[in-house]
């Protein structure tokens, strides 16, 4: 099972003077249960790409399959399968807290499952599970108006609203933008816990290369509407020239690590803070 993007091109406002090609023959496979990061600078095609994953945008040419179902199948027969397939892919936009609208946190989160036509007890269960997944205590927050919460809490309510649909693939567009360091870390940990526990595939857009390095198993690097590189983050981030062309820099830990290699304090690259401190600590102690 996977999301398969096959030779997708997309142009905004085709046939007008403002026409702009945002995706150009992009192909990628996102397996179930994987963690995929999407990187690239503004206008490189990241957001256009992720909006294809659940059929919010329809490819100009090319196809997108979710667990084998063609999202472009408009036939009457295919319609049911299409709705099912799109529901498997949950989408969390940038600053999702701006989309909260209900009177209470629980009602807001229940909106999605209710429109799926589920029974009340199932809805309640899902709201509880979703709140638990984002670390919001049900007893404390369920009846609060969402607009009284802090920015970080509101964002978690919005994400819970998508989780309540219990998607197999969760797509997040810069989920930590504007959050303080602790809220960022908590949100990322919750995202990864969901991945471990429910086996939810995570696809996230990020400008934080260090997060991509430590969390993703695969990264897709976009440039000018094309995928310029894909693979394990460690390998993609080693291509420093390509990164520069894409307007990005390597993760901080890799920058520091290569600086220490150059100065002779490390004999090979390390990729985590812990490893860096362990290796460096050992060598420096021995040196004394």
């Amino acid at each position: 099972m996977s999301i398969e993007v096959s030779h997708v091109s997309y142009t905004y406002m085709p046939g007008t003077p403002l026409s702009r090609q945002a995706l150009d023959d992009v192909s990628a496979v996102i397996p179930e249960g994987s963690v995929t990061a999407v990187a690239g600078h503004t206008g490189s095609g990241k957001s256009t790409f992720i909006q294809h994953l659940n059929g919010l945008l329809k490819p100009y040419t090319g196809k997108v399959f979710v667990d084998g179902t063609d999202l472009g199948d408009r036939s009457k027969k295919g319609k049911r399968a299409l709705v099912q397939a799109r529901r498997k892919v949950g989408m969390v936009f940038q600053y999702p807290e701006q989309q909260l609208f209900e009177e209470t946190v629980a009602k807001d989160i229940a909106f999605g499952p209710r429109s799926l036509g589920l029974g009340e007890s199932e809805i309640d269960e899902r709201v509880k599970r979703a709140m638990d997944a984002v670390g919001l205590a049900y007893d404390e927050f369920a009846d609060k108006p969402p607009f009284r919460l802090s920015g970080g809490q509101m964002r978690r309510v919005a994400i819970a609203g998508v989780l309540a649909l219990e998607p197999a693939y969760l797509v997040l567009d810069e989920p930590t933008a504007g959050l303080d360091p602790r809220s960022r870390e908590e949100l990322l940990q919750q995202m990864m816990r969901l991945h471990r526990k429910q086996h939810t595939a995570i696809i996230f857009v990020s400008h934080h290369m260090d997060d991509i390095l430590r969390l993703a198993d695969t990264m897709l690097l976009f440039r000018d509407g094309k995928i310029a590189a894909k693979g394990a983050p460690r390998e993609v981030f080693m291509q420093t020239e390509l990164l520069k062309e894409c307007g990005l820099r390597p993760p901080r830990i890799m920058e520091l690590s290569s600086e220490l290699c150059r100065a002779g304090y490390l004999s090979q690259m390390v990729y985590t803070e812990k490893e860096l401190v362990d290796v460096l600590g050992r060598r420096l102690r021995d040196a004394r």
Partner: protein
Amino acid sequence: MQEPLIVMQDVSHVFQADDGVGKAALSHVDLTVKRGEFVTVLGRNGSGKSTLARHCNALLLPTSGHCVVAGMDTREEKDLWKIRSHVGMVFQNPDNQLVAAVVEDDVAFGPENLGVPPQEIRSRVHESLEAVGMEHFRHCAPHLLSGGQKQRVAIAGALAMQTECLVLDEPTAMLDPQGRAEVLRTVCRLHEERGLTVVYITHFMEEATVADRIVVMDQGQICRAGTPKEIFGDVKSMDELGLSVPLAARVAFDLRRKGVKLPAGILTDTDLVQALEGYHVH
């Protein structure tokens, strides 16, 4: 001795909620920003950073206490426009603060409203766009610019008002790494070359290392203040406050705990490499 640009004395600000219960976003804050100083404000979401920033040019007024900008109390309504021409604001969302259909019109918007003569407006617009490196885009439509470029146009808009202080409220939060670097570089250059006073709010700890002084906020109060070296030297406090420190400072902290002797004040990769120079590894 020059008088400081911004003086806040015992400033509290209470937001009145619909249910009548007040919430203190700032409580008893004392802060002085000197002319030409670069002050970075750190703190968690909801700690009062933005409320503090909005007091700097009278977008918000203290519920109690005094805020004096360039010698004028922000409560004096007659001085409002003078205060705002001393202190310009740049907000987080680059799409919310540009008003015109063409870049140069946007930059001209402020001075036009002050009734500045057209010839002078033209030279101010030219000069401001040049200062932020956006002169080539003067005829461009703002919506076609990248986020970093839009923020630089917003900064130019403030410069065209001949502001002596820029208050930036998370100007890089919505930008990609390149845009982030562009904005920070521009602000630093304006600070160094023109002595612009800067109050810079951010969640990026690495951006804070360029400041003369860091002010840390927690629950509406200033809980710590000091140079970047002082603030980021205390890794434990920053973690407890829900904040962080630059990578090199954290690595240095962890190495010291492992018994490696390192000097204080390590903030950058270069600092760390230099500090290791006494060690010979094999």
